[in-house]
């Protein structure tokens, strides 16, 4: 286990998503989502590493809902939880107005939770996510789990629902999770590393722009 700051966790997650083929904007969503999970004590790095491994270099339009109306489906694949969550936030006004969104199959559904937290800060009191036997309530400042902890970490859910709820108990304070298992970090970092360009001697000299002595 190594201690990482939340800024490092977010930055590496963003780069990793980009390295796995996501657009910059979606990679930013991944970074914020993983950070949000770690803020609430949940192992986001592990989940994102697994998601990126499964969806490596797939076109992201094949992992996102094909349309905003009806039950959200992703063509031939299961939905990406990051694309699903980001789209839920894009239609925050509809969800705050009471729309319940139902999806088809979605991988690593816990990665949708950070977006539910964001929605709770955008006009709704709280947001309830349900999949399989899991029910989680997201508030702006925390989450309330109404079911078995281990069930949160399902690799896939056949369906997920997201809706506003009127009242909710208060979330208890949790410590942020700064420690990440070395192999999870390495898996994520391997994706992130793909965003860095290999160096030629010419670019090394020119790119950093050193032309005068710097040791005087």
């Amino acid at each position, binding site marked *: 286990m190594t201690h990482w700051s939340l800024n490092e966790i977010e930055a590496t997650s963003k780069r990793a998503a980009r390295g796995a083929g996501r657009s910059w904007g979606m990679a930013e969503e991944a970074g914020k989502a993983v950070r949000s999970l770690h803020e609430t004590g949940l192992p986001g790095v592990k989940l994102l590493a697994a998601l990126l491994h499964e969806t490596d270099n797939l076109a992201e339009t094949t992992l996102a809902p094909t349309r905003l109306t009806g039950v959200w489906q992703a063509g031939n694949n299961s939905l990406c939880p990051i694309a699903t969550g980001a789209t839920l*936030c894009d239609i925050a006004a509809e969800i705050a107005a009471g729309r319940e969104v139902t999806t088809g199959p979605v991988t690593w559904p816990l990665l949708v939770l950070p977006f539910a937290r964001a929605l709770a800060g955008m006009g709704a009191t709280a947001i309830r996510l349900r999949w399989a036997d899991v029910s989680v309530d997201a508030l702006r400042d925390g989450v309330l789990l109404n079911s078995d902890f281990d069930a949160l970490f399902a690799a896939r859910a056949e369906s997920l629902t997201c809706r506003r709820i009127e009242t909710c108990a208060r979330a208890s304070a949790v410590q942020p999770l700064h420690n990440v298992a070395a192999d999870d970090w390495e898996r994520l970092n391997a994706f992130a590393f793909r965003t860095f360009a290999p*160096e030629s001697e010419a670019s090394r000299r020119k790119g950093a722009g050193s032309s*005068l002595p710097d040791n005087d």
Partner: protein
Amino acid sequence: MKLAAMGASHATRLSFMRILLRRLKSENWRFERKIFDFDKKGVGTAVYVAHGPQHAYSLVCFGHDLPPEMRSDRVIATAWDATFCLHDGIADQQTIERLRQNIPLQEAGRVLSSELSVSRANRSVRLFDHVVERLAMGQQPDIARLTETGYLMRTTAVYGSGKLGAADRETIHERAEFSAPFQVEMLSVYLTRAFILDLVEAMARKRSPDTAVRLQPHLRRSLGVGNSTGLGMAPFLINHPALLNNWIAAREEALARVRNLDTATPQQIGLFVELLQRSRLNAANWRSSDGRQTRHIAELNEDLARLDDATARHLLSGALPWNALYQWAATKLSAEGRELVAALLLEPHGELVDDLAANMSADETAGFRIDGAITIGRMREILENVHGELLDQDWSAPEANARLWYYSEEKLEPRLGEREEEPLDAYEQPLAPARDAAHLARDLEGEDGAMPLAGFLLKHPQHRHTVRRTQIATSLPYAEIRDNTIAADMLPVDLLRCKLAFFGAQQFDPRSDRWIRINMFKGAPFPDELHQADADFWPYAVPETGK
């Protein structure tokens, strides 16, 4: 906001070093040199503690014996003359030993949430050795040489905000002393300056205990901390649009308040003229090895001759006096001169403008969520409002799309590449907002303007980043640089200078189009002088007193 104007930025009283020192003085901070143990080569350990009203902070310093061939300001260096860490609280022996295992390694080490910054510095060798030698002999150093360089050590990186495992800014930003931007980093550098001066005097004493003297106080004061900054810092302002907006907005609001004043009091005019005189000394002592900057400094010196004391007094004698001076500068002076006059205008008006320091921080996450409910037609309008004519530029022209920003595998640091010369497109960072906005506008063209943006984003996720930052810029007028950040002729040093001016840096000395040396805290009172010294106008040189 254009890059060229950003490249002429000057520090103001809203710069972060100025904000820090005003606070340290007004809150009566107490400073303590808890540990100081060095040999004659400068190898050893020091701990400086700053005691504030609620919290104490320790700068833990390690001095090293660095072989000359390893001394480099570039980020690829692996060893330094001195390394530092700002620890949250009073560092105990166990903490110091833990830091000793990590801080000298810099990027190769790790710290914890109890640490706030990690930094390093190299000696300006010729001046450093000269000062130690002279002091050891019981003499003061050569003033011309002190003036020429202006510092004894240069920091080459000051890492804060969660780097290397350190505390996330979000966990400390509610402390009053860290509410303004970069106060952790500025506090670290301020204490580092005290360490550097203590170190040269201690090395002189070790070398020759019987003859060594201390540096005279006014010479001590004249030395700042150098800094060498390269491309690592350049993308920052593009990556923090809300923060950039708040910095510029605070400065613009301060200027607007002063320019709206009906009158100038004799005291205000007196202070303005005094600082104008002291600015002439600053400009006369400003040296650069860069041809373009040297020309700009020459123009500034001419500007300051044109704005003589009588002209200033005359301009300040009528209605809306500060506005008259501002308008005069706008038509009569160079970019350097205009920016300096803008900074000077704020000086006599601390009571009117200093409260704006509280608005200069930003929560970048506040604008993160995209409003996908707006129509595609509305999104087109927003793009037009934010980027205007840049949308119509020919972005396929080689000179418009000449460069790209990327991170190198070697040091994980930003670089600027030539698109035509190297196959780097796949690694391009999203640091060309105007070009990306033009591409978004093009793809929005064929769409039904009445449809919601959220549906467009499902089909075009590649525009998600640009949609986000353009929506941020809708409510924050200075969030976006209105210029081409990948043009063939763009100068990265313009971005660096803007950021460093907001820090409070002086004596900008570009060393190429993409790295720059500066001086920090030059003229500032030292921690032990703060209670009795002026903590406000220290950046303005004091005429030779002969003392």
